[in-house]
C-alpha cells in the first residue's frame, strides 16, 4: 500500500444525520473517519442507528444531511470497493452454493470461466469445496453463513460491511466464526465495519469500538482495542481481554441509560 493510498481514509462521514420522513431522528449529526486497515465495530442497543449507519456507508439509503465518502468517492460510486454481509445469509435458493458465490461477479459481467475459478478459491478458503453443487436448503445455518461470506469476498472488496452476521448462531459457532473472520482478514487485508450487540465479539474482532447511544443515534464512547494482531482463541481468556470487555460493557450500560 503506497503512502498516497493510506492518506485517503476508507470511510469519512461529515455531519451525517438520518431521519425517515417526519419521524424522530435516527442519527444525529455525526462525524467519523475510518482508516484503511481498521476493523471498526459499531456497538449499541437497538435504536441507536447502527444498521442505518452501515446502510448509509453502503449507499443503500441517503443521509438527510451531511456527506459520506468511501475511499474518496460517493458511496454509490464506490460500490466496487464494497461488500455487505447481512444477518441472514440471503442466498438465492434456486442456485447451488457455487452459483451463489458467483453472483456478484456475474452481476459485474466477469466471464464464466474466471468467476467459477474465483468462486472455487473462495469455497476452499471457507472450507466448503465439498458442497459446491449443493442447494442452500440442504445446508445448516452455519454453512449458509459461510457461503454468504464467500460470496461477499468473491468480488475482492476492500471495505467489508457486516450487519450482525453471526447474531443468529449459537455462542460456540459465533466464536469460531469470529476466529475465521480474523483469519480471512489476515489473508485479504480488507477494512471492516462491523455491527453487533455482543461486547465479547466486538472486543475480540476490533481495532476500534464505537459505542453508540440511542434516540437519536449518536457516538457515546470510542475505544481503541490494543490487543495485538494476529489474535487467537486464547485471547479470550487473558486478563487484558476481560479488562477491555469490562470497560466496553460499562460504556454500553452508560449508553443505554443516557
Amino acid at each position: 500500500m503506497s503512502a498516497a493510498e493510506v492518506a485517503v481514509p476508507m470511510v469519512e462521514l461529515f455531519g451525517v444525520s438520518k431521519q425517515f420522513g417526519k419521524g424522530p431522528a435516527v442519527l444525529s449529526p455525526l462525524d467519523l473517519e475510518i482508516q484503511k486497515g481498521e476493523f471498526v465495530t459499531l456497538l449499541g442497543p437497538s435504536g441507536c442507528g447502527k444498521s442505518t449507519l452501515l446502510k448509509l456507508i453502503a449507499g443503500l439509503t441517503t443521509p438527510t444531511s451531511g456527506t459520506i465518502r468511501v475511499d474518496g468517492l460517493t458511496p454509490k460510486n464506490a460500490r466496487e470497493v464494497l461488500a455487505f454481509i447481512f444477518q441472514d445469509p440471503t442466498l438465492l435458493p434456486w442456485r447451488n452454493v457455487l452459483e451463489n458465490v458467483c453472483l456478484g461477479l456475474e452481476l459485474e459481467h466477469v466471464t464464466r470461466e474466471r468467476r467459477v475459478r474465483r468462486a472455487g478459491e473462495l469455497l476452499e478458503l471457507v472450507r466448503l469445496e465439498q458442497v459446491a453443487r449443493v442447494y442452500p436448503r440442504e445446508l445448516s445455518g452455519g454453512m449458509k453463513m459461510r457461503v454468504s461470506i464467500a460470496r461477499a469476498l468473491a468480488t475482492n472488496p476492500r471495505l467489508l460491511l457486516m450487519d450482525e452476521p453471526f447474531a443468529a448462531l449459537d455462542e460456540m459457532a459465533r466464536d469460531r466464526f469470529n476466529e475465521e473472520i480474523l483469519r480471512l482478514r489476515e489473508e485479504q487485508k480488507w477494512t471492516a465495519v462491523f455491527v453487533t450487540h455482543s461486547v465479547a465479539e466486538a472486543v475480540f474482532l476490533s481495532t476500534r469500538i464505537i459505542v453508540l447511544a440511542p434516540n437519536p443515534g449518536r457516538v457515546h464512547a470510542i475505544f481503541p482495542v490494543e490487543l495485538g494482531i494476529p489474535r487467537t482463541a486464547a485471547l479470550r481468556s487473558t486478563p487484558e481481554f476481560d479488562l477491555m470487555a469490562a470497560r466496553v460493557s460499562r460504556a454500553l450500560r452508560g449508553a443505554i441509560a443516557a
Partner: protein
Amino acid sequence: MRRWVLVAANAAAVFVALLVVWQAIIWIFRVAPYMLPPPLAVAKAAESRLPLLLNALSLTAAEAAGGLVASVVVGIAIALFFARSRWVRRMLYPYTLLLQTVPIIAIAPLILMWVGAGMPAVTLIAFIISLAPIIANVTEGLISVDRNLVHLFLMHNASPAQLLFKLRLPHAVPALFVGVRIASGLAVIGAITGELYAGSSRVGEGGLGYSILYASTQLQTDYLFALVAAATVLGFAFVFLVMILEWYFLRRWHESARTLETD
C-alpha cells in the same frame, strides 16, 4: 416408489368400491336406467361412441390448453406491469378480482356476439376464467422478494434487467406454479361451460360441453355419464401435468416440490 404404488392402489380400491355402491343402489332401489345407468352401460356407451367421445375430448382439451397458455402469457405480462408500482396495483388490482367474480354464463352471450360460436369463443372463455389466479400469484411472487436480496443486487450495480431475470422472476416461479395449478382446473371448467353456450352447435363437431347438453336432451344418460367421466379425467390430467412440471422445475430448491417426492 413404494409410496406411489400404495397411493395408486388406494385410489383404485376407492374407485372399485364406488362402482359397487353405484351398482348396489340401482339393484336395491330399482332405479330406471335413464335416471342412473349401471356402470357397465356407461362403459358400453363410451365404447360404442368412442370416436365421437375422443373427438369431443380433444376439442375441449385444445380449447382449455389454448386458454390456459394464453392466460399464462398474458397473466405474466400483466403481473410484470403490476409489480412495477404500488399505485398501479392499487388502481388496477380490484379489476382482476372482477375477472374472477364475473359469472361466465352472463358474459357468454356477449362473447358469442363478438366472436361467434365455436372454438375461438370457447378458448376466450377458458382464458378469461383462468387469468385471475395467474395475475394474483405471479404479482405476489414478484413483489415478495427479500429486501436484503434487492440490496445485495444493488450493491453490485445490478441493472433493472438483471434484477428482473436473476432475482424477481426466479423468485416468482413457485408462485407461478401455484397460479397455473389453479388456472389449469379453471380452464377446463371454463372450456366445458363455454361450450354449453358458445360451442359449435353442429352435431359431431362440439366439444364435451356441447355433447353433454346434447346427450341430456336425448336422454342418453349412459353416454352423458361417460362424457362427465371424460371431463373429470381431462381436468385431472391438466392439474396432474402442471404438478409434474412443477416438480421438475422446483425439485432441487423449493419445498413445494418435496411433497411430490417419494421417500
